[in-house]
């Protein structure tokens, strides 16, 4: 443990990004993620990088678009209302097949909402990041260590697949401190022949673009992109299983909700209840396989969420709706307590999967 340091989740993201080779950060202040900007403002000038406070989230994501066009690693971060503003840029990044890392430290919504933790941007991140048919890699850390690890991983995946990686965290993850080790073997960036770095009069000009006025061309680009997505769905899903071997009740939870659920599972196990958890680490691609497998034994799936029930849809799809489904949730910045989750587990156990 000697090499571990205590860091806030937001700071861990920032330092991990620097380790991953990110030298450009653009953002606009918003609680509860501002520590990322503050950290970058301090560090970037000292390592020859660029921190720039943009005039808006809209400008920030477009600065990201500009840097990404040149082939450099680049990121922005925000919280829920700011991500809505960035969604235009997210769509353009997807349309132009540009890699980027975007962090959403979620807070309660809709509208201005609140500033306390939330997971209610799940749909936005996994299904509707902006207009048009596109996906983002959505990574959901559940510890400060994972805030850092998934940041490095996020950059690598973004470059590999030429798309946006989104770190979908929440206020708790951003603000809490835990020991973290920042030792990484960062993979070398793939060659980016498509980047606009100047032709140097040695090649045809490169064009970074998302406009296709011919419908057949636009269709083709969409289909090609979705072939890539299909490969990602088959190869990049990440998850953690916790006490799932004999589980008759399966909890689905990510981020802070999974931490709370673990406490409840420990207590339920003491009472002899066979309960476990599948914690998706990638929300897109969603880890369908372990859920489908779990549905062979588990009669009930409890989705623990800080939303009105968003991920539960994906749990149902993954398990082909063949179980019983329970939502255990708090919203608005409230977090379910271990006791609330335990109650849901005990009730599910009593019902035994009966409707």
């Amino acid at each position, binding site marked *: 443990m000697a090499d571990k340091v205590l860091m806030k989740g937001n700071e861990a993201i920032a330092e991990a990004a620097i380790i991953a080779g990110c030298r450009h950060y653009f953002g606009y202040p918003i609680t509860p993620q501002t520590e990322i900007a503050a950290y970058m403002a301090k560090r970037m000038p000292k390592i020859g990088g660029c921190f*720039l406070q943009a005039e808006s989230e809209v*400008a920030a994501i477009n600065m990201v678009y*500009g840097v*990404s066009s040149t082939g450099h690693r680049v990121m922005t971060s925000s919280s829920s209302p700011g991500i809505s503003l960035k969604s235009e840029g997210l769509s353009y990044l997807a349309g132009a097949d540009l890699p980027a890392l975007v962090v959403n430290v979620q807070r309660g919504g809709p509208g201005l909402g609140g500033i306390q933790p939330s997971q209610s941007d799940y749909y936005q991140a996994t299904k509707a990041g902006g207009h048009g048919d596109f996906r983002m890699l959505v990574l959901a850390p559940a510890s400060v260590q994972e805030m850092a690890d998934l940041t490095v991983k996020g950059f690598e995946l973004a470059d590999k697949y030429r798309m946006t990686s989104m770190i979908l965290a929440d206020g708790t993850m951003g603000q809490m401190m835990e020991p973290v080790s920042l030792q990484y073997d960062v993979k070398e960036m793939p060659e980016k022949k498509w980047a606009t770095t100047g032709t140097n009069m040695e090649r045809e000009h490169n064009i970074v673009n998302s406009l296709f006025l011919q419908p057949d061309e636009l269709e083709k680009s969409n289909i090609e992109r979705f072939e890539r997505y299909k490969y990602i769905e088959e190869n990049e899903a990440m998850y953690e299983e916790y006490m799932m071997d004999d589980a008759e009740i399966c909890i689905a939870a990510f981020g802070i909700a999974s931490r709370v659920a673990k406490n409840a599972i420990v207590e339920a196990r003491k009472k002899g209840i066979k309960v476990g958890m599948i914690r998706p680490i990638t929300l897109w691609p969603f880890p369908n396989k372990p859920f489908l497998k779990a549905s062979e034994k588990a009669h009930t799936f409890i989705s623990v969420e800080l939303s009105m029930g968003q991920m539960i849809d994906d749990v149902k799809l993954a398990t082909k709706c063949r179980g019983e489904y329970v939502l255990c949730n708090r919203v608005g910045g409230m977090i379910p307590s271990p006791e609330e989750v335990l109650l849901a587990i005990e009730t599910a156990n009593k019902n035994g999967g009966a409707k």
Partner: protein
Amino acid sequence: MVVFEKPHALTDVPMHYCPGCTHGIVHRLVAEVIDELGIEGKTIGIAPVGCSVMAYNYFNCDMIEASHGRAPAVATGVKRALPENVVFTYQGDGDLASIGMAETVHAAARNENITVIFINNAIYGMTGGQMAPTSLPGQITQTSPYGRDTNHCGFPVKICEMLSQVDGAEYLERVAVNNVKNVKNAKKAIKKAFENQINGKGFSLVEVISSCPTNWGLTPKKALEWIDEKMIPYYPLGVYKDRSAKEAE
């Protein structure tokens, strides 16, 4: 004997612009400047959303197509990542002066070392002739069918005058391309705006008063006359800011 040649910085792709539209002239001026400065290999252009959206097909340098109004932000990212390269945006009045106003003003405020070519033709061309932020009082457009009523939808935005109040901006000049003399002046201004960037001087914007015969409902020739009669009186030509020149005085 002078043989007419196309600048190297322009591709062979036929332009889609309407007959009489002055976009072609301004494209050519930019390309001539790029050729003369020998910077094609290190230039990166940012195309807007609007009639010149497909400018990326017409310039031979590397090109990026930005979302509506965000070209200065995209250019900021590119320039910060590649400070040794030359970065320009090419934007129309809707793009730069309406939806992208914040990006424009803040790029100027930061004295972002980029070159901005701003086409002001007082109308939205691509969407078929709607009122622009620069449409003149009383001007009839598809969305101001009874003439622009300043009581209802306010007054045109004068970008050069406005940005001249921004401390950060280096160089602002308004030119026109409706006659030979003006075209020559326009080229000088565009060249200076690129040279400023190469010399590290900062945010340089050239506003080019242009024509849109199709959406103005005029013949190309009449459209050029309309620039003299209506546009230039409202948008006087000239240098609105030249910090380095002023400091040298």
